C-alpha cells in the first residue's frame, strides 16, 4: 500500500507498531515485521504476493547453499551464485523488459508480434537488487548466509524499503536485524522524518504534479518559453521531492522500528558536476551499480588500457537508464549521463573544478534538467519541439501560456519547492534543535502542523502515486 495512503498511516502502521513493541521477546519482532511486510505488499499487489514469497525462499536457499560451498568448493559456489543472480535477473527481465525486448526486436525485423506484457510486480527492481546484493555478498564472504529465514525475509522485504528502496545491503541492517529494539529518541526522529517526507510529497510534489501533468500533456509546438520552462523546472523539483519524500518516509519508518536505513539523497541539485550529482542522487542505486557492476567490470577488463573506465561508465549508465524503465527514452537518458560522466572522467572534471563555482553549479543543473526532458517525455520525437520551445522556438509566450491555462496560482509551488532542494531548512532545524528543549518543542509543533496540513490535503484531493513506484 502506498505510504501516503490513509490505510497505511492510520490502520496498518498503528496496528503494526503496537504489535511490534508489545511483543515480549525482541526476536519475535522480525516475525511481525515479515508478516506486516507481506500484508503491506499483498494489500497493494496481491497478485504478485506468491512471487515475492518465491523470491524470498529462492534467495534464502541459495544464500545457504553458496555459504556452505564457498569454503571448499569455490567453483561450485561461484556457479550457484551465478545461477541465483541470473534467476533474479530473469524474473526482473520477464516482468519488466520482455515486452520491450520483443517489441524492439519486432520493430528491428519489421515484424508484427502480439505480446502481452505481464503486470509489473510492485518494487521488483528494488527487491531484486537487494536479493542480488545478498547472494553476491555471501559469495564474496563479505556477509555470512542468514540461517534464520525470518531474519532473512525481514531484511529482504521489510516494508519501509520494499517498494522504492533505499536499496539496502544486508550489512547495513544486520545489527538491527539481530536485535530489533525500541529506541525512544529514534522513534521521535523517525516520526519527524516521516512527516517531513509526507509533507514534501503531498504538499509540494503532488502540487507540482498539477503543473507538470498539464504542461507535458500539451502539444509542444504550441507552447512558449514561459510554459516550457515552468514545466521543466516544476518537473525537476517534483521528481526530487517525490522520490526524496518517499525516502524520508521510508527512513523515518525504519527509525520507528529501530532500523537505520541508508540515505538516498544529499541535496543533488547543488552538485558541482554530473559526477557529483550521481554521488548525491539515488545514492543506493549508484552504490549498487558501483559495487556489483562497475568495480567487477574494472577488474575484468583491467588489462585493457584504452577508454576502459569510460566504456565501463557507459555500460553502467546504460543499465542505470534501463533499470528505470523499459523504454528507449530511459536508455537514452542513461547513455546521456554515461557520456557526460565519461567525459568528466577523461579530464574535463578536473578542468571543471578550476572554473568559478557558479559556473559549476549552473553547468551541472542545466545538464541534469536537460536529462529530465528525456526522462519525462517518453516519445523521442517529442523532444525536439519541447527543446525548441525551451529556447524560444515558439516565441516568449505562445497561444497556450501560463496565463491562458489559468496556472498563475501554481507559481508559488516551484518557489517554495526550491527551498527544500537546498540544505537551508535542514540547517535551521539542526540549529533550533540544539538551542534548547523549547526549540525542539517548536520544531515538533511545526512538524505536527505539517502532518495536519498534509492529511487535510489528502482528504481534500487525495494523493498521486509515487513516480518511482513505476520502476
Amino acid at each position, binding site marked *: 500500500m502506498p505510504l501516503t495512503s490513509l*490505510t497505511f498511516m492510520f490502520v496498518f502502521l*498503528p496496528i503494526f507498531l503496537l504489535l511490534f513493541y508489545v511483543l515480549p521477546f525482541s526476536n519475535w519482532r522480525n516475525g511481525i515485521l515479515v508478516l506486516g511486510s507481506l500484508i503491506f505488499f499483498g494489500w497493494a499487489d496481491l497478485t504478485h504476493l506468491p512471487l515475492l514469497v518465491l523470491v524470498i525462499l529462492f534467495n534464502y536457499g541459495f544464500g545457504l547453499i553458496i555459504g556452505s560451498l564457498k569454503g571448499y568448493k569455490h567453483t561450485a559456489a561461484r556457479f550457484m551464485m551465478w545461477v541465483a543472480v541470473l534467476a533474479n535477473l530473469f524474473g526482473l527481465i520477464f516482468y519488466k523488459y520482455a515486452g520491450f525486448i520483443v517489441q524492439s526486436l519486432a520493430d528491428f525485423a519489421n515484424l508484427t508480434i502480439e505480446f502481452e506484457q505481464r503486470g509489473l510486480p510492485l518494487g521488483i527492481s528494488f527487491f531484486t537488487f537487494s536479493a542480488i546484493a545478498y547472494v553476491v555478498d555471501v559469495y564474496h564472504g563479505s556477509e555470512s548466509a542468514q540461517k534464520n529465514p525470518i531474519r532473512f525475509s525481514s531484511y529482504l522485504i521489510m516494508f519501509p524499503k520494499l517498494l522504492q528502496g533505499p536499496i539496502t545491503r544486508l550489512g547495513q541492517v544486520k545489527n538491527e536485524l539481530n536485535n530489533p529494539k525500541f529506541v525512544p529518541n529514534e*522513534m521521535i526522529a523517525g516520526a519527524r522524518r516521516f512527516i517531513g517526507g509526507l509533507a514534501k510529497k503531498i504538499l509540494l510534489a503532488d502540487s507540482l504534479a498539477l503543473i507538470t501533468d498539464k504542461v507535458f500533456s500539451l502539444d509542444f509546438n504550441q507552447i512558449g518559453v514561459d510554459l516550457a520552462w515552468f514545466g521543466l523546472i516544476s518537473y525537476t523539483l517534483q521528481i526530487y521531492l517525490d522520490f526524496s519524500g518517499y525516502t524520508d518516509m521510508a527512513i523515518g519508518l525504519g527509525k520507528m522500528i529501530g532500523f537505520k536505513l541508508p540515505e538516498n539523497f544529499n541535496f543533488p541539485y547543488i552538485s558541482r558536476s554530473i559526477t557529483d550529482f550521481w554521488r548525491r542522487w539515488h545514492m543506493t542505486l549508484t552504490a549498487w551499480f558501483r559495487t556489483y557492476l562497475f568495480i567487477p567490470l574494472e577488474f575484468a577488463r583491467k588489462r585493457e588500457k584504452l577508454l576502459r573506465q569510460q566504456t565501463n561508465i557507459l555500460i553502467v549508465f546504460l543499465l542505470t537508464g534501463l533499470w528505470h524503465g523499459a523504454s528507449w527514452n530511459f536508455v537514452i537518458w542513461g547513455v546521456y549521463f554515461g557520456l557526460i560522466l565519461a567525459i568528466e572522467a577523461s579530464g574535463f572534471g578536473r578542468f571543471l573544478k578550476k572554473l568559478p563555482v557558479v559556473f559549476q553549479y549552473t553547468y551541472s543543473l542545466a545538464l541534469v534538467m536537460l536529462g529530465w526532458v528525456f526522462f519525462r517525455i517518453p516519445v523521442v520525437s517529442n523532444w525536439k519541439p519541447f527543446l525548441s520551445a525551451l529556447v524560444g522556438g515558439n516565441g516568449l509566450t505562445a497561444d497556450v501560456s501560463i496565463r491562458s491555462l489559468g496556472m498563475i496560482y*501554481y507559481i508559488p509551488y516551484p518557489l517554495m519547492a526550491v527551498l527544500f532542494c537546498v540544505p537551508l531548512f535542514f540547517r535551521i532545524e539542526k540549529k533550533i534543535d540544539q538551542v534548547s528543549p523549547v526549540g525542539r518543542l517548536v520544531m515538533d509543533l511545526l512538524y505536527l502542523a505539517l502532518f495536519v*496540513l498534509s492529511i*487535510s490535503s*489528502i482528504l481534500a484531493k487525495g494523493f498521486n502515486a509515487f513516480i518511482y513506484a513505476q520502476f
Partner: protein
Amino acid sequence: MILFYITICSLPFYWIIEGDFKNKRSLIEYRTLEPFPTLPEEDFKMGIRYLFQAHPVEGWKTFGGEFLPGRYQSAFEIALSDHFPLRSTGIRLANDFNRLKIKLVYAPLNRIANPADMRKTGIYVSTEDSTLFYAPRQVAIKREFIDNTLEIYRAIINTHPQINIYVYSIELIEHSLANPLNINYPNGDAGRSLAYFAENIPEGLTLGTFTVNDFDEYQDYFYRTDHHWNIYGALKGYKEIYRMLAKNYPEISPRIEPKGFYTFPDFEFHGSLARFTLYKIQPGDSFTIPIIDLPAHRVLDEEGNRIDIHKRAEYHSGEYSVTPFTDHYVEYFGWNPQFYMYEFENNADRNLLLIGDSHASSIRRLLASHYQHTYAVDVRNQPEGYFSLSDFLLKYEVDDVLFIGGPYQTINHDYVIAP
C-alpha cells in the same frame, strides 16, 4: 511527537467505536459517504473449498476475488477518507491554505477577481470577497453544436406544427458579455453563442433570453454563492416567459404577483459555488422566497401517484438545516426527477410540456398555474439522455412546449432530443 503516535494509534479505535457508517451524508460535497466494504466471506469460503479440492489456482483466484484487482482496497481507502474524524474541517483547512497562496500570488496582478480554489472548478471570487462566479468558458460553444441544436428545433417544428415551441435561454455568467474576466479570456464566449443562436433561430420558434448588461446587474439577479438565478432573477424570467406564452395563449390566467417576500432569518445561503470551492464568503446570500397564492394543485408521477419533489412544507414549518453549504435552492424549490406533472384545479384547458434544468425549478409552479397539466421533464435525467417528443406526445396531450435553462439546456444540447 508523542502526539503523532497517539493520533495515529487512536484512530483505528475511533473507527471501531464509531461502528455504523451507512447512509451518512457529506453536506459540503452533497453526497452520501461511502461505507466500509464488507469482507467477501463467501469468496473466502469458496476459495478454501477449492484449495481443499486440490484446485490451488482456482482457490487463490476465488479467495482473492475482490482483493486481486484491488477493488476492496480502493473501497476501503475511500471509506477511510470519507469517515475520517474532522474530515470537513480538514478539507476546509486545506482549501484555506490554498486560498492564502492564491491571494499572495494574485495580489500584485490587481485583478477584479481571483481563483476561488486551486482545482479546476473555474470559479473565481471578486477581490472584495463578495461574489463567487464562473470565469468565462475558455472557448465559446462551437458553432457546429449550436447548428445541431437549431436543427433539432427545426425538426421539432416541422414534425409538430400544431404545437407552440418556446425557448427561454438564461445566459449564465460564464457565457455572458458581463463577465468581468472576459478581458483575460480572449477566446471566451462573451455572449457570442447566444447571439449566434438568436440570429439563426428557425421560423416558428419563439425565443426569449435572460441576459444581464453588467456585473452589477448580474449580482442583482443571481446568487453570489450559487450558480442559479435568485428569486428576483427568477421572477423577472417568469414575467418575460409569461409575456412570451401569452402571445399564443390569449386566455391565459393573470400573471401571479407575489404578495411579498420572506427571508429566512436564521441561516445564510452558501450555494453550489461556495460548496464546490468550500469558500464561505461573508456574508452569504439571503435565502428569500416569494409569498404567493396558487390554485389548488397536485404533483404526480408517471403512474398518477402524488409525490414530493421539494421540502417547501418543511421549510414553512421551520424544519430545515442550518448547516453551512446546505443546498437550500434545491431543497426548497425541488429537484429534477426524470418526469413529473402538475395538475392544477383551474379553468385552463391547455397543457404545457416544460423541458428545463434546475433554473426552471423556482418558477415551474408559477408557469404550471396557467395550465391544466404541466409536464416537467429534465432530459439530462432520461435513460441514456434520450428523449423522444413524438413518443411523449402519443401519451400526453400538449399544446405548448417550453425549453428553459442555461445554454447547455437551450442552445447546445449535449443530450439527444428526437423530434
